[in-house]
């Protein structure tokens, strides 16, 4: 065991951590597809998938078998290269963002100084998945869906970044660990309530979750940008959406709810409990709210949320300057 120097074992442990976090993120995304349908059934007074296995617990396996064995069809009128690339971008950009999330004091992949900006950059790249997927399909519904998606995502990304700047100003750092440490006495949900509210809205919109699922509105667009996708390529868009949901929940917990901090229980339990709460909230929002009209969504973003985040940032800046020593 002479090769097992502290350096090598540190590298191996870091790789192991990265692998575990990657697998858990993907698996959690996959499990959420089933959990969501069961919960929707519960809240909407119907059964949901309950046939496969005891209480429908094996539904995930059935779904996976189906998705793997479907014919992976590429339409002859599609732009092949971009058609194949789009689902990969959708999945990869979201999974890469998990890199910056500190799960417990000892667990987390990268401790970047620009942590929060890295997430915003990856969210920016994620737009291309929908845009290219919709265009490469060569289908008018897919194109309209892609248009809507990119316009909506651009709108909501503008104030998503601004909503987070209040947190950055309070913590004095973009580093996620510093942000968690800064919340030792008071979670940022209290001083940054408007930041939290706007970030939650923007997070739902950027992952195209209900009620901001205009890009894939079934009634109008027949599924939007992924209408021509089948098999595993559709699966990547589909799971990617849930991975995005997990990511946004974990980010909300880290930025506004003190991350791993909490009394009595170990840090990991606190982190997963809080993240689970927000995952449930995402499902509950889908179960209870109708879908607004598209132009209302856009004008709500520009006329309500953007000014709100600007005022929030202004007030936060003033307070931080007033409270500063000297």
């Amino acid at each position, binding site marked *: 065991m002479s090769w097992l120097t502290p350096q090598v074992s540190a590298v191996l442990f870091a790789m192991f951590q990265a692998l575990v976090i990657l697998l858990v993120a993907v698996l959690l995304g996959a499990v959420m597809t089933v959990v969501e349908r069961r919960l929707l059934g519960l809240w909407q007074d119907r059964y949901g998938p309950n046939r496969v296995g005891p209480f429908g617990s094996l539904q995930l396996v059935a779904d996976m078998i189906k998705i793997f064995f479907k014919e992976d069809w590429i339409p002859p009128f599609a732009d092949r290269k971009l058609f194949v690339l789009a689902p990969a971008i959708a999945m990869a950009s979201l999974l890469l963002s998990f890199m910056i999330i500190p799960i417990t004091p000892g667990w987390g992949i990268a401790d*970047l100084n620009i942590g929060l900006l890295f997430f915003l950059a990856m969210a*920016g790249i994620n737009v291309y998945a929908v845009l290219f997927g919709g265009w490469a399909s060569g289908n008018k519904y897919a194109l309209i869906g892609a248009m809507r998606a*990119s316009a909506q995502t651009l709108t909501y990304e503008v104030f998503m970044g601004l909503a987070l700047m209040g947190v950055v100003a309070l913590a004095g750092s973009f580093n996620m660990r510093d942000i968690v440490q800064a919340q030792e006495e008071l979670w940022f949900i209290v001083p940054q309530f408007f930041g939290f509210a706007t970030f939650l809205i923007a997070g739902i919109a950027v992952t195209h979750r209900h009620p901001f699922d205009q890009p894939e509105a079934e009634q109008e667009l027949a599924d939007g940008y992924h209408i021509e996708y089948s098999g595993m390529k559709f699966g990547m868009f589909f799971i990617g959406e849930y991975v995005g949901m997990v990511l946004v929940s974990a980010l909300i917990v880290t930025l506004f709810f003190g991350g791993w901090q909490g009394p009595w229980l170990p840090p990991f339990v606190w982190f997963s409990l809080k993240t689970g709460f927000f995952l449930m909230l995402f499902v509950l929002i889908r179960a209870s709210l109708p879908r607004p009209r598209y132009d209302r969504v856009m004008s709500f973003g520009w006329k309500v949320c953007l000014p709100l985040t600007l005022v929030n940032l202004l007030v936060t800046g003033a307070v931080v300057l007033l409270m500063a020593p000297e």
Partner: protein
Amino acid sequence: MELAFYLSGGVAVLATLGVITGTNPIHALMYLIVSLIAVAMVFFTLGAPFAAALEIIVYAGAIMVLFVFVVMILNLGEGAVAQERLWLQPRTWLGPSLLAAVLLVVLVASLVQGGAGQFISGEPISAQAVGGLLFGPWLLVVELAAMLLLAALVTASHIGRRPEVERWSESKGRRPGAGRGKGNGGGR
């Protein structure tokens, strides 16, 4: 870090060549996005992570999306590809590339003479340092840029405004609030 610098620099050069020689507009734009991300990586290796993140967020994440958006709506088909191919004939690009080659020689010569023996290094510049500089010595430039952006914003809102007549007839004729709203993503 040095290896990463040269690798991402090479990717940037190759991707930019792809932009110029590509015949399909969307594929060319994709190369441009790759090129921008590679340039961001170059910033990263030079110790400017803040600039790198902003490069991706602003250029690759926002501006290029608008480019792709517009090209998508234009629905360029085979005709555009044929036209691009026509423009790529040697007699079109020979003159400009000769002149550019002369400039390249000058650039390489000045680099070799000026900075021989220097290696890629640099201490990381934090976001705080960038902010301090922007709102310290360079405050005037920031304010000028802000005024320019404000002027652009006012202009855009003026151009994007619906004419008074149409708005009036809409409120009389149809139920209020119906019809195409502002900012429907250029979907028409």
